[in-house]
């Protein structure tokens, strides 16, 4: 049985609904080599800035990814605002923070579900998504969209939520936290789950850093880097401590994400308590001229928008480096030596989003 088999994994694979292709060279169910190829869905969105008004481009930025849509739009806006030196009203900053954290909760719950599906725990998958649906309901109610929030705009946000409703949501989240805990405890404690997660795909602290991993992938290896520490949006007033785990394996990444769900709930509750009244947007005049690397922490990790304006209504260049793009090299390094059964969960622990990656 020591014959080498090549298992084509993706671009269409049931476990990984993402167009990433890996040729897994397999010996007795042990992967000895993984050859990646991406580029199946390159959309050239970066090129589109040359044709779209920089204000309209927010809609495109939001649609780079379906799951971290809100933070994509927000990062783009922050970059443009930084170049144009706009002081966004406080309420808008807080609303961005609240929605950003909501998108983190729903993204992590989505990931938990997919992870459960990858290690063959169907009911856990369904229950994770059942709870995610409730979060989506709140999102839809406050923003009008379920995954594409559509609330970002240069100079503020497009919708307001009444303070009363925010208070109610904050209370509602408390009850949801209990339900989420019921499900996440299974990820953390159930032995059949641990058997699939512990010790799989260990990434050392040094490797994680020098292979450019970001987000939960980096933090699970013990590096305390969280872009929210930069203090964009309202994170100046609501300090965030990066959640880290020392194990560096799939279980560690799972732990980091689960803790981040509860951290996000906490951040939302604190933001609701502190949110200032006032306008939610400001008038934007003129065109951006200058450059800025806008960095924010998405559910999947650090996203970076390079925005360069040349004083016209079209930007000269906009470049997005999404977290998945940064995490892929790291995952390629840990795949050799794993068994085929570990590949889906291993790939999923970077929370891959290839459509972001290829913009």
């Amino acid at each position, binding site marked *: 049985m020591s014959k080498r088999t090549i298992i084509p994994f993706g671009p269409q694979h049931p476990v990984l609904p993402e167009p990433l292709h890996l040729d897994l060279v397999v010996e007795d169910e042990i992967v000895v080599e993984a050859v990646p190829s991406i580029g199946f869905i390159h959309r050239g969105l970066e090129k589109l800035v040359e044709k779209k008004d920089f204000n*309209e481009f927010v*809609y495109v930025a939001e*649609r780079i990814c379906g799951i971290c849509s809100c933070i994509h739009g927000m990062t783009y806006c922050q970059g443009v605002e930084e170049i144009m030196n706009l002081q966004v009203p406080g309420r808008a900053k807080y609303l961005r923070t609240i929605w950003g954290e909501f998108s983190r909760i729903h993204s992590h719950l989505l990931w938990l579900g997919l992870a459960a599906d990858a290690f063959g725990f169907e*009911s856990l998958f369904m229950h994770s998504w059942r709870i995610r649906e409730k979060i989506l309901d709140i999102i839809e109610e*406050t*923003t009008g*969209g379920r995954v*594409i929030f*559509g609330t970002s705009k240069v100079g503020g946000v497009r919708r307001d939520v009444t303070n009363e409703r925010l208070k109610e949501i904050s209370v509602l989240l408390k009850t949801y936290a209990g339900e989420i805990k019921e499900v996440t405890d299974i990820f953390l404690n*159930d032995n059949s789950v641990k058997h699939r997660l512990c010790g799989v795909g260990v990434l050392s602290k040094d490797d994680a850093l020098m292979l450019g991993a970001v987000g939960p992938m980096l933090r699970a290896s013990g590096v305390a880097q969280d872009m929210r520490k930069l203090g964009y949006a309202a994170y100046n007033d609501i300090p965030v401590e990066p959640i880290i785990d020392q194990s560096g394996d799939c279980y560690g990444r799972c732990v980091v994400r689960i803790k981040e769900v509860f951290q996000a709930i906490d951040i939302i509750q604190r933001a609701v308590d502190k949110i200032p009244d006032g306008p939610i947007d400001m008038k934007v005049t003129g065109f951006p001229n200058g450059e800025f690397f806008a960095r924010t922490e998405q559910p999947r990790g650090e996203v970076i928008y390079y925005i360069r304006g040349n004083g016209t209504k079209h930007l000269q260049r906009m470049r997005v480096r999404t977290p998945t793009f940064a995490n892929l090299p790291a995952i390629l390094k840990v795949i050799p030596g794993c068994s085929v059964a570990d590949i889906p969960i291993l790939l999923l622990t970077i929370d891959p989003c290839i459509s972001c990656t290829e913009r």
Partner: protein
Amino acid sequence: MSLFAFTKTVLGSMVSKPATRMYPFEVREAFPGTRGSIAIEIEKCIYCTLCARKCPTSAIVVNKAARSWEIDRLRCISCRACVEACPKDCLSQLTSYSPAVAIKGGKDFFHHPAPKVAAAPGAAPAQG
């Protein structure tokens, strides 16, 4: 050892009401702010083409001469930019999504012939 940890939740949901619903027999009620499909009151439209210019996906085509307004439902991303841009408030966003489209490139075409509008300003000028 923690096995069968999920039993309680699983048995609990077995005896309680399912979280899913029997769509399409039972349709979820949309929230008031849901961004659904775009609707137009064509009688009020002045064919200024502002919505078409603001549309990020060029889903809207307005023809001033023919007095027509059409939207490609498959291109529309329900971003609400046109609704916000419309000077006559004749565009609105429904909370329901547009129904499934059977034909690719099928567009919803609205046309309001000129004579009727000529009579309309006198009939209902207040509601501009």
